């Protein structure tokens, strides 16, 4: 699933939550979140992704976060030591 938003923030998190939930419930083994459009992410959205990770772990779905290119997004995941947890390549 490609995130079409440039910013993942408090104003978008509810919509984003609905869309991701709909998509992830339809997959069985693997779910990919494509971050190529995302330039900025906040703590609220990090929580959403950790929550998604929890769901995927429970359902044995492999979660992949791809194309994390924006500096702020990379730094945020790094800042919270989440690269390993979320399987993000350094």
């Amino acid at each position, binding site marked *: 699933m490609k995130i079409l938003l440039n910013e993942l923030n408090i104003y978008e*998190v509810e919509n984003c*939550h609905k869309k991701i939930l709909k998509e992830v419930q339809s997959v069985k083994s693997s779910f990919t979140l494509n971050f190529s459009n995302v330039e900025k992410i906040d703590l609220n959205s990090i929580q959403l992704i950790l929550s998604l990770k929890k769901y995927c772990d429970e359902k044995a779905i492999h979660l992949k976060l791809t194309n994390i290119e924006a500096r702020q997004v990379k730094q945020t995941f790094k800042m*919270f030591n*989440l690269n390993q947890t979320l399987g993000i390549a350094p």
Partner: protein
Amino acid sequence: MTEELQLFCEDMDEQLSIMEDTLMDMSEISIEAVDSEMINKLFRAMHTMKGNAGMFGFDDVVSFAHVAENLLDQVRNKKIVLTQAMLELFLLVNDHSRTLIDVTVQDEQLDDDQLTCHNDILAQLSAFSGLGKPDVLDLKSDKKESEAEEAVVDKISSYHITIKPKDSFFKSDMDIMAIIKYLGVIGDVTNLTIEDSDIPDIKQLEPLKSYLTLSMQYQCEEPIDEIVAAFEFVKDDIDLSIININEKIETENTESVEPAVVEPSIAEKAKPTSNALAKPIKKKETRVEKNFSLRVDSSKVDQLINLISEMVIANAKITQIADMDDNIELLEAADTLTSMLEEIRTGVMDIRMVQVGSSFNKLRRIVNDTAKKLGKQIEFVISGEDTELDKSVVEKISDPLVHMLRNSVDHGIESMEKRIANGKKEKGRIDLRAYPDAGSIVIEVEDDGAGIPKEIILAQAIKNKLVSPTAQLTDKEIYNLIFAAGLSTAESVSDVSGRGVGMDVVKRNIEELKGTVDVDSTLGQGSKITVCLPLTLAIIDGFLVQSGDTKFIIPLEMIQECIELTSENRSNMKNNEFINLRGSILPLLDIGDYFDINRVDYERENIIIVNSGNQIAGLIVHELHGEFQTVIKPLGEVFEKISWISGGTILGNGEVALILDVPMLLSHIV
């Protein structure tokens, strides 16, 4: 602008003002006399600015402030000797910080000139603090330097910080990541983790609710207060725990606590287990309570004042009804209510009152810069800084004062050569004073300069057709012509003053505040501009009087006394408009005649003796109703040109009483 950003701007403004005031204090004494407290004050202001900017993620402001703070730190640690050039540079830092903050808050970019200035200041700061200027460095021996470094290491403390945002934290729109980044600027953040055991899976998740707990290890030189201060803006939206790992801190309210051993989270499972915090550490938790002042939006106070105003009017109505019905109990209750309303009114008004000092101190810079630009030396003396005035009045009086002071520096104070030739001290003097006087606040700007040449003023006014060539004007009237639009006697137009615009605006602004402005001058000795301002703009204690069928309010504080105008007085007046009051001439104004009110025969006439500034006169009225809490209501556009009426008020029976503008009336009589 969000409320938080508004607070941020106010805080930054406060810190910049502290910095500017301190720099002005420093510039008024010799550089050797600058003490460590002054330097510490500068450092603290810059440090606080850096911290506040960090909390909002304003990286450009943080990095700029950081460089300035570094230099100040070196100065306060006596690694670098403070020089005059450095003081000048810090004034530039102050000015540029203001620009940088404005631009950043507006989410804009510095323009080319501002960027050049930014880089230039940074380069100069670096030149001072980087060992590029050995002549100003107090070079330490290697041994001393290594001792200093060790001392720094000794000062570093380690903390374990846990931040638990409250459920509604995300809705506060505050960015905790910016705070963590800021902590990273003043110290080292390590092992930052998200404790996610409380986060439900995405099916159960309420996306706007916070389930997170953040924890980290933190090392810094700063005291724990500084760390707590970093969370100032979010303190109501988070639970914060800061444990000092190095030392046990005994506090009365906290007992030794064993950190809870939590189940490793998803994030923690992936981390190496060598984290020192994995072992339970018996340490004490220190929670620092900070005192804080409450900032309230001024519109909320205005709203309160409006409500109180309406209550005052309603109470006046109750009192009147009780009076008419001769209901003693109701009268007593209304009386109690009146006293309580007066107390509430005073309390709320007090909230709006601020000392004029902070506003005055900003003017020091203007006098200093203008004098420097014109090559003059001026001693600027401020007195009465603790005089209190309504905040909105203080804000609005600032621009007129700037105009007046610039004029004093430019036209008032002569050049050094002229002063010496005239036998004066080469350094000119400008006094700015504030003091309360008869219910008003008087602000004076006085200089010991050349004075106002009245012949030139008059000639210029005639040339500009502001007065008739045959007009017979008193000295005071001639001096007051400087407030006429388009009149300037400056021989040359400078970028400081001399275009003939300004003083008329000064007068207009002051009159908008229901104040008056007056000028006095002695050629060769100097000039004095006196501004008289009302204490507040909302409710006043008034005295209700009546002439014919019209009721008027006279501000109580301007009333000196009331006497009867006896038939003997009347006959002695012999159709003149003054009486002999205990050996002095008292000019009179019959309010009924003045406002062309239908005359009614009264048994008794009264003279209300009023004063404003140094003017005194008697107002003839027919009936005295007594004190009245007066809520000032604007009369609207129709009445705006009637300068001797400053507003209206609603009486208990719904009637309107007009509030007399006593200073304006006196200027017509005296």
